[in-house]
């Protein structure tokens, strides 16, 4: 049984649901408190998040920096639009690779579900052009490196 579902909604969105064995308050806090975020929003093994700024208030800034400890790294910046403790977060974010990716608008909901929490995250799908550009880069300069980079984007971009 998979705890997570992932599906596209129209050609613009991806909707992800995931159940957690913890209260909505705990899951919400794990998305807004830097010392908690740094423990899990890491992507592949071996990566860390040495910088985690998360000003959980409307207009508050987000800045996450990842490092693999071997000189590779990238970062994400964003802003909070709406927060309703402990049930809803709306924010925008974009990656710096260092080239900027288009803004990703993300709504995350936390609902009581039995003894746990059902989290629903609705995010922007990169448009066909962006995906094609990513892929084209990969095909010309080596699939492996590009997919590794793409994987970083996704891992980082989808933590919230």
């Amino acid at each position, binding site marked *: 049984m998979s705890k997570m579902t992932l599906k*596209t909604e129209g*050609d613009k969105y991806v909707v992800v649901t995931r159940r957690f064995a913890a209260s909505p308050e705990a899951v919400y806090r794990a998305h807004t408190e830097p010392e*908690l975020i740094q423990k899990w929003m890491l992507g592949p093994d071996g990566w860390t998040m040495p910088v985690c700024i998360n000003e959980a208030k409307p207009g508050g800034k987000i800045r996450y920096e990842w490092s693999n400890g071997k000189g590779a790294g990238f970062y994400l910046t964003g802003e909070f639009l709406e927060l309703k403790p402990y049930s809803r977060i709306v924010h925008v974010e974009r990656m710096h690779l260092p080239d900027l990716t288009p803004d990703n608008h993300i709504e995350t909901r936390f609902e009581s579900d039995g003894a746990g929490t059902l989290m629903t995250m609705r995010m922007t799908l990169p448009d*066909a052009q962006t*995906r094609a550009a990513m*892929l084209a880069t990969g095909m010309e300069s080596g699939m492996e490196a590009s*997919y590794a980079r793409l*994987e970083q984007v996704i891992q980082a971009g989808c933590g919230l």
Partner: protein
Amino acid sequence: MKLDNAFSALADPTRRAILARLAKGEATVMELAKPFQMTQPAISQHLKVLEDAGLVVQRVEGTKRPRRLAKAGVEAMDRWLAMLRKALEKNYGRLDEVLAGMEPKKKRGEKP
């Protein structure tokens, strides 16, 4: 191919059928219109949605514009979604542990 997952373009049964037809080889609008018993403008409309989604491409052959599947577009989408899933599962697996560590105490988790 798990096309159902990929785009809203695929939510429409006619467009899915068009893709299934194109998966067997390229076809012109006229060739596509016949089995679907639809007018050419209606087919063209569907093709435009599929082209905008990066799923179908056309080439020029004299006066014809045969369409075919844009494999890269479909694969890029599937690949992107697969990586997204993998990345999230990894992160959330870690988050489960973080939550297990913080929940009983109702305060900031000190241990992973």
